[in-house]
């Protein structure tokens, strides 16, 4: 019996085609991850400052520590950096550490705190306040006016995710430093691009989306290749067990002698709808997060 033989030329051609496709796939991946950040680099002068109509110093202090957690050095550092950001954007960047707020909703408390302490810059009281209730272990971010344009709800969700992980472990100074640092990055992005960060222009999110796209492509490719092979192989199988005798059933022989349908109950489930970005820009009203516990 002769063995199966392959034509050498056909095999070589197939191997070349395979290698070309593999090379193209491997080259595409690093390009996909390298591009996005470079695209925004030259669009705006990152050192440009907002028109210094307002003097940020008139709206200090930007860091309020009612519980005395921050050492003097940290306090001064955070204060200076918040003032710089406020000066550059015309939006007050505030940080407040308060004691217990009891059973009060932390967002309501923060809005009331913002208004009663005349926070925010300019006539419109533009600003952002990150409030930590240390003894109630609650936090929230509220934005007002132009603060909603610079610090979008999308960006605030990202900031809080990083800050709250420190607060949970009682690293309050680290959490405050994270807030100020992330706020600086947000301000830099706003000044460079002229708009706040959203899912559509977030380079990190784009990288993640592309990664998801590649993963879906790989899974789909495996599924399609598997489906093609399965279909071709199924052509070779024509033998299967017969489970039914419907071909041999006598006409009109079926006789239903008893039936009973019993109601067992009604069950209702609900799924919360995902909330959309509220960074519509401008206008009155407070934006920010709904806060939470840590």
């Amino acid at each position, binding site marked *: *019996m002769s063995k199966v033989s392959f034509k050498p030329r056909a095999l070589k051609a197939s191997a070349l085609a395979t290698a070309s496709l593999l090379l193209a796939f491997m080259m595409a991946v690093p390009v996909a991850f390298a591009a996005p950040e470079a695209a925004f680099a030259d669009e705006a002068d990152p050192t440009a400052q907002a028109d210094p109509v307002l003097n940020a110093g008139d709206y200090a202090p930007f860091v309020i520590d009612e519980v005395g957690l921050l050492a003097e050095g940290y306090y001064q550092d955070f204060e200076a950096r918040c003032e710089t950001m406020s000066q550059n954007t015309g939006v007050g960047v505030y940080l407040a550490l308060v004691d217990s707020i009891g059973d009060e909703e932390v967002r309501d408390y923060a809005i009331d705190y913002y208004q009663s302490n005349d926070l925010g810059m300019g006539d419109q009281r533009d600003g952002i306040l990150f409030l930590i209730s240390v003894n109630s272990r609650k936090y929230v971010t509220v934005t007002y006016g132009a603060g909603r344009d610079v610090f979008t709800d999308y960006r605030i969700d990202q900031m809080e995710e990083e800050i709250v992980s420190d607060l949970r472990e009682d690293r309050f100074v680290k959490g405050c430093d994270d807030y100020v640092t992330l706020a600086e990055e947000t301000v830099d992005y706003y000044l460079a691009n002229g708009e706040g960060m959203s899912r559509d222009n977030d380079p990190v999110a784009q990288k993640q989306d592309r990664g998801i*796209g590649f993963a879906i492509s790989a899974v789909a490719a495996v599924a399609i290749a598997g489906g093609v092979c399965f279909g071709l192989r199924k052509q070779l199988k024509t033998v299967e067990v017969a489970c039914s005798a419907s071909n041999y059933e006598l006409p009109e*022989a079926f006789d239903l002698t008893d039936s009973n349908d019993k109601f067992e109950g009604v069950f209702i489930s609900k799924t919360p709808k995902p909330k959309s970005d509220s960074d519509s820009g401008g206008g009155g009203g407070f934006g920010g997060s709904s806060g939470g516990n840590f």
Partner: protein
Amino acid sequence: MARESLTYQCPACGGPLHFDAQTGVPTCDYCDSTFTVEQVEAYYAEKQAKADAAAMADASAKMPSNPAGAHVADAGQQPSSGADGRDRVRQAQHAGAYVQTQVIGGDAIAAYLQSKKPLEEGDANAACVVCSSCGAALIVSGSTAVSQCPYCGNNTVVPGTLGNTLEPDLVIPFETTKEQAVEALKEHYKGKFLLPKAFKAENHIEEIQGVYVPFWLFDAKAEGSQTFRCENHRYWSDSDYDYVETTKYSCYRRGSTRFARIPADGSKRMPDDMMDSIEPFDFSKLKPFSMGYLPGFLAERYDADVKYCAPRAQLRALNTLGSRLESTVTGYDTVLPDNRVDGDVSYTNVSYALFPVWMLHTKWSGGDYLFAMNGQTGRMVGDLPCDNKKMALTGLLTFLGTAVLGVLLTFLIV
């Protein structure tokens, strides 16, 4: 009964007879004379009777006289006992009527077995050969030579005995020829991308053989009940939530249905799924059994008796009953069986039949491959080998092509 062997020879010229699938009658290989099955049977019944009488006369001449007259009585009874009974069965079945087996104590199978007479060698010109490799027992008419076992391809067969083999009640004659079977097999290979090319070339396609495969046919009544879990769904939304309301029901159904001639092959050697796959046969072409249909073909002696095969018919009957019960559950979005059918199958009649199958066994690359074609309808089945290297290469190229396309789409969309 005389043991003198008779072959089915042409009454006109003495040449060998074969059953012609296209004309449906025995035909002479030499003079092309055709006869009906009944003519051939009548001719050979007369010859057999003469041979019996001659044998009896010869035996009487050699033995002393017997005052009891027992041999005379036996000679008078023998031609009529088995032959008359089988004739009555054939006449009734030929008329299209069922030959109902008397049910003793509700067991149709036991009653059937009690009423049947075993096939005897020389009685209907039947002989038995056994494959020396796989043990397949084949019944042949005297003029048929067996060159190769249809199950394992072995070329050596040895004489065997019919033992207690029952005579079949019914047969479906071949309606397709060997040439048609060969063409069907070639067609079966076409369009199979993963079939190794060498397989087609090395397949001994001309060695395809016509075999009558033994089947038990069951008339049955299935009765039972089943419960189903049913649901209806309703969807709505408001500004904060998406809602799903599910209303659940438990539905009970009970019923019965009847079947005629559920087949189960009586050969342990023949894969059950293969015989299932060449169904259905056209039962309107069933004929009373006669050895006149066998010349030129083999017939396998059953080795799975009726009690062994009955559970397969039972399972198929209960599954069909379950489908029928489920079809009565309507008005729900989802219907799922809560349990298997809780039921019973009772048999009202059993019969033993031979069905025509063209078979080819082949070995390739260490594997055994069996192909079967329904000798009546021409339906061909048989699993084919797969070229695994070709499949792997196809899969890899498809994967890479799809992956590259996916990457390009990702760049365009994101």
